[in-house]
């Protein structure tokens, strides 16, 4: 459904941030994009979304250039601030804009869908609250609801779990998983949490300046890869609690804490 082929992008001509990104995502699949800070995760999402233009290569959604298929994409950005205090419901209804003619205003149906989306993320009770009086986590939930209200084919989320408490983190991950499966959509999300990737993602894209790895979470998030891409020792621990086996990603940070903090990432940076 989503195909990216040889995509490259750089803010300045000298230095490309993204190099030759290639992957394919099928319906009902979730892709988790991972990588160190500043590697270009947000940039990748913006390219997929069409906010930034690929400098070479392309991405296609359902066979169409994704910038044309923009209406089918729901996007939840990373950082926020509003100059006008719209109510939560109004904010979510904005997600319906793309389906309406330029001169139209939202109708009953749009409000119904918006309320459904709010209910889905569990914040219907905030409907009438003003967006500039929400806590960071609440705002994040509102933005996710707004993307859902747009009934997207492809959902793009930039660190959706950030600022959420861990109940809400689980909720949002579950929602994303369920929607992806039920509504036959695909989903791309950035995350800094391997646990989350392992829990919901079907594919993981590990980004790096020159080389990126794409594959199943367990295959990609190996001890070697994590060390190469993040400079951290890690392990995936399987525990059996209350009769259920749980895989948990664990960071083995003794190496770090014994070194000078802030020192170089010794084993980091793969040779290009």
């Amino acid at each position: 459904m989503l195909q990216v082929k040889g995509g490259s992008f750089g803010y300045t001509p000298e230095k490309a941030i993204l190099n030759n990104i290639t992957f394919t995502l099928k319906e009902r699949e979730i892709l988790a994009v991972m990588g160190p800070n500043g590697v270009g995760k947000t940039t990748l999402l913006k390219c997929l979304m069409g906010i930034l233009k690929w400098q070479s290569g392309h991405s296609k959604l359902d066979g169409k250039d994704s910038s044309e298929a923009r209406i089918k994409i729901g996007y939840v950005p990373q950082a926020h601030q509003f100059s006008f205090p719209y109510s939560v419901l109004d904010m979510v209804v904005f997600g319906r804009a793309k389906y309406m003619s330029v001169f139209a205003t939202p109708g009953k149906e749009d409000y119904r869908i918006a309320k459904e989306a709010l209910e889905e993320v569990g914040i219907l009770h905030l409907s009438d609250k003003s967006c500039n009086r929400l806590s960071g986590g609440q705002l994040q939930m509102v933005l996710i609801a707004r993307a859902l209200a747009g009934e997207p084919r492809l959902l793009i989320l930039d660190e959706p779990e950030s600022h959420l408490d861990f109940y809400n983190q689980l909720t949002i991950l579950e929602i994303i998983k369920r929607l992806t499966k039920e509504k036959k959509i695909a989903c791309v999300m950035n995350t800094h949490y391997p646990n989350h990737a392992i829990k919901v993602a079907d594919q993981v894209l590990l980004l790096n300046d020159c080389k990126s790895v794409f594959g199943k979470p367990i295959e990609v998030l190996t001890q070697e890869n994590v060390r190469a891409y993040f400079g951290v020792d890690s392990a995936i621990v399987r525990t059996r609690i209350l009769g259920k086996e749980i895989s948990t990603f664990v960071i083995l940070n003794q190496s770090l804490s014994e070194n000078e903090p802030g020192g170089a990432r010794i084993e980091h940076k793969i040779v290009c």
Partner: protein
Amino acid sequence: MDGQKRIANKLLALFGLLIVVMILSLFLGRYSIRPDEVVRLFKGRMLLESYSDLKVAEHIIFDVRLPRVLIAALVGAGLSIVGASLQGIFQNPLVSPDILGVSSGAGFGAALGILLTSGAGLITAGLSFFFGLLSVLLTLSLVRVKEHSQTMSYILAGIIVTSVFTALTSLIKYVADTEDQLPSIIFWLMGSFANKNFDDLQLIIAPILIGILGLTALRWRLNILSLGDEEAFSLGINPKRIRIAAILFSTVITAACVMASGIIGWVGLVIPHICRQLFGVEHDTLLPTSSLLGASFMVIVDCAARNLTSAEIPIGILTALIGAPFFALIYSRMKGEV
């Protein structure tokens, strides 16, 4: 929606206010006509009769006061809705209808017209409208498309164009004949509804109404624009196209207003603020309420201007003197939500 009904009620109330204010101001003027005579005249109009004993009164009500009240209402509505729209588009509460150079362009056109024809006829009006549009087109052409921070780019381009046209206007004042052209230009630029008639009304009614309808139709989209470009884009709409459309409607309105009554400041800046306090920030409600309140406000102010003294008080003085305390009141009731 419960909220929507409440808003409909408010709009209805504002509309009622406007009608009442307009009718009342037909009764008031320096030439004394008894209320019962006014009523008789209205009846006469409807029955297509004419009373010879009230010939002057008839002329005053239907040819002097009526067009003037209508023009004041249109201009008030137009400037206010434009202010509200542009403040949203540029996410800046200091934006007034002339931010992109319309007023200065239209002012220049009018000054040029007066210089060339020594009169405020059709040519002057036409030049005024033409240069109003031209100035905004210039501004738009100065805006670099690739610009990262789009709104700043518009505003800076607007400043450039405004300053050039203002300077050109001064230049015209400077070369104009001090005997009759200069006072005409100054008088015209000061803004006034004095001596407006149905010809003037005919000139502006179409552009202003079209503009108001256009902006009102776009009102919900303006909400999204006010979130910023990237956000709007990510919601699947094209912010640039909506912005251009809104700017063009705004320009048509403002140019027509300036053409009809010179440059009247303040209203377009302040009425939207008041409405935002009274009725909320949603452009959905903000635009219609601004235009209705703006119209009533302008009719009231103009009525005061006509009535308080025999030599009309310039509209600009009264707008501020009546509006400022009103604004201060609203402002002191604000809860810091702007």
